């Protein structure tokens, strides 16, 4: 009962057989081996499965794979630059200490990437709005906000309307 479907993930097309009910997160993790996308709840509550669908952050645990056929999907693995270099946002999380157990990290970084794409110089309030769906139990978020601020600077938009506290 599975159907053939062509997914566009991280700039590559893959044709595979998927069950009509298969969730995007399972296809990414189990069929494509992209285990960087994490399942923290399976219910749209934690954001650890965040991927980008045509640049917009979505919960991969809530999407049916067949429904996103042909649309551009970016996972954490797709952020790496040439030669496997961390993206500026990933690098900022490393350097500003926005990572502890790391389970929320891929989802956090995907949400932050989408934010900075749309809004290169977000205020702290805008960062909070963008990350409110991403739960983290370890960091208390302070260093995550600092990471996003640092990422904005790295992306070449150093002038920020709100001074860091």
């Amino acid at each position, binding site marked *: 009962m599975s159907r053939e479907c062509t997914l566009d993930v991280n700039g590559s097309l893959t044709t595979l057989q998927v069950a009509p009910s298969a969730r995007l997160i399972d296809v990414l993790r189990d069929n494509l081996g992209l285990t960087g996308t994490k399942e923290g709840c399976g219910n749209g509550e934690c954001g650890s499965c965040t991927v980008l669908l045509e640049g917009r952050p979505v919960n991969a645990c809530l999407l049916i794979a067949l429904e996103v056929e042909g649309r551009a999907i970016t996972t954490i693995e797709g952020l790496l630059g040439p030669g496997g270099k961390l993206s500026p946002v990933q690098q900022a999380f490393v350097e500003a200490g926005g990572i502890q157990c790391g389970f929320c990290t891929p989802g956090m970084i995907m949400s932050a990437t989408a934010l900075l794409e749309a809004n290169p110089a977000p205020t702290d309030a805008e960062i909070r709005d963008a*990350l409110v769906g991403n739960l983290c*139990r370890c960091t208390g978020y302070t260093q995550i906000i600092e990471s996003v601020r640092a990422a904005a600077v790295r992306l070449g938009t150093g002038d920020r309307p709100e001074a860091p506290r």
Partner: protein
Amino acid sequence: MSDCRHIGKARPRPDAADKAAGRTLYINDLIRPGMLHGKVKFSEHAHARIVRIDTSRAERLPGVRAVVTAYDTPEIRIGFLNDNFALKRDKVRQFRDEVAAVAAIDPDIAAEAVDLIDVEYEPLPGVFTLDEAMAQGAPLVHEMDARGNPLTTNELSLRYGHESGDLAVAERASAHVVEGRFSTQLMQQSCLGTAGCLAELDMSGNLSIWARTQIPFLAQRDFTQALRALGLPGRNCRVIVPALGGTFGTGLDTHAYEYIAIVLAHRTNRPVKILYNREEEFANLSPRQSAEVEIAQGCDREGRLTFRRVRVRQDNGAYGSWGATFPTVMLLPVTSLYRVPNVSFDARLVYTNNTYCQAMRGYGNPEVTWPIESNLDELAEAASIDPFELRMRNCNEPGETTPMGLQVTTCGLKECMEATAAKLDWGAERRARRGVGMASLIHVGGSGRIYRSDGGGVILKFDDFGQINVSYGGVEMGQGLHSALSLTVAEALGVSPDKVTINPTDTGTCPWDVGTHASRGAFIACNAALAAAEKARAQIFAAAEEVFPRLALQNLERYCVQHPDYRAPTFDLAAAVKADRFELADGQIVLRDAPAEPWLKVDLDRLLRAIHFRGSRGEVITASAFYEPQSDLPDWQKGVGNMSATYAYGAQGAEVEVDEETGEVRIVRMVAAHDVGKVLNPQTLAGQAYGGLTQGVGYALYEEILTEQGRILNPSFTDYKIPTIREMSFPVHLEFIETDDPAGPFGAKGVGEPGLVPTAPAIANAIYDAVGVRIRDLPITPEKVLRALDARRAASAGKQTSTP
């Protein structure tokens, strides 16, 4: 140690890049060839006899490889009190009891099969509150103890207490006495990575298990016993710890699901993985215990504490975990937070048909710091002394021995409180409905002895390329242990931290360690690493006596070719080469008594190769050390014993604003000041402090597992609210006080848990300061605040009408 190269400097943690790239492998990501997926069938009753289990429909489902129950597998007893079973037989004692389990070729089939298992129950009356459980003639949760002796009460046999001084005399002599009752809630650890394990047996019956554990070696002991029960005595058990998506205490016990995975792997001869989903994690994993506390404290006219009396009752749930030893840590603040000469403590734990509980960060400490610090503000008010001032008058000091017998070596509590007050502008005028509050903490800072060995070992292995591999048996669960450990090794061996690799934790390769709890990870690991590094240096320097001169002269030859005008200083190399005159720095070995000539420095990797490749005298350097901290195993019934090598102190303060219409509490800002001994890596240290405080905020204001007749009502993040980035939108000011503890590695104390210990009372005290209501039951919800405000208004209205 002020001239450290790496210690004390912010540096990204070694595992950060892989985590940022999504490359880190958690239990969720592990796959073994032929692996099956296990799923547990949980009880549908809080207390019931099991009449019949019919697994036939599940067994017939295509894709199912095994269905197991207690009736067709050997009995495996689990838990610190041996009162729990991997699979339940005869009766269930809580909703989450494991009555059967399935292994299937994929998770969906396993879930379907579990639904096809029919269990017939005969419901029994249950006990769901402390009073019900302790009532005369209450239904018994356990009819027998682990040895088969009949039980007559639901009270656990564990006894914890403390008596020092003369309480009655002290109470009578007090100028002010304030009593109160406080309670705390069930809190879920809420690790983002859910619980799971992967078990695999080889053809000889040796077990490998990848587990979310904080106690690899105690788990190894537990699982070895399970192998014996399965008819595999004397087989090897290897516990491997992959990357963990947080633990926060959930890894201090072994769990039924782990034994079930072992049983299924044994039955099917295939690797079996069990992974909880979020609902299972909330409903079927043990939360932090709740507590009911009665407290009384008194002081004299000058505000000096005269006595403290604390009575604790805890709902243990249906089985015993290490969480049943929370009172061992309660003893610290009860006897030793501030100077209080007369102390009485008693804690009782009671079995109920509620979910059984387990450890969480802070381990009993927040449960009693909450009443102590809330009640202290009440005492301050009774004595008309400023709460900060009252605390300062009773502040602990270095050199004191507390009623518990804790030997306070270093103590930065005074500095912590002063910093907190200063940063909060203590005493400043504030807007209406705004207030400030503070609370302090003491915690174990040099591990906490609850087991006959409280130590841990480290092995350092050097290779031909100057890389150093470090094996330690404790667990990195996100807290930054590997950062502290790699910086320590780098510092001690004069190499760059990126030359140091921390091996995965594996009981097959790492030396024994009691477990990563009690904020002990970095304290123990780094102390052991320093001792191992000392041994490695001795080995390297001894061998260098032989090989160094040759390498240096080769250097000189090459140097002279490159610098034809160079004139080497007259210097007796042979005389300078002595094992005790070498030093390692910047990845090189140097002689302390030699001039700073470039050719007199030899790269460590080159030196190691020269030591290795010298015919029959060749050696490769490895060094190991086991570090056992200096502390005593306390007598828990008497509540006496110096349980840690040093103690951590801290204070937190909050400024809040209370909306009197909605009861909403808004935190304006917080301060956390911690006596950390010494900062190892400011970045990871800040992470521990921020993260701990945030869990403290959740404990104070938002989080509570709700139950009804033993059933958990809110098993999701929608209904169980942990702080999101929005709740944490206030500034947090951190202050680290360095007291350079003589027992600590570079002077450092444990820092993992203190962050959440005083948060709730600091906030509650601020709420009182803001609007004059005292909340005594956590969490402090808007409803409770509103109710208290209403009661206060009613009372003051009553007062007004009754006053003529």
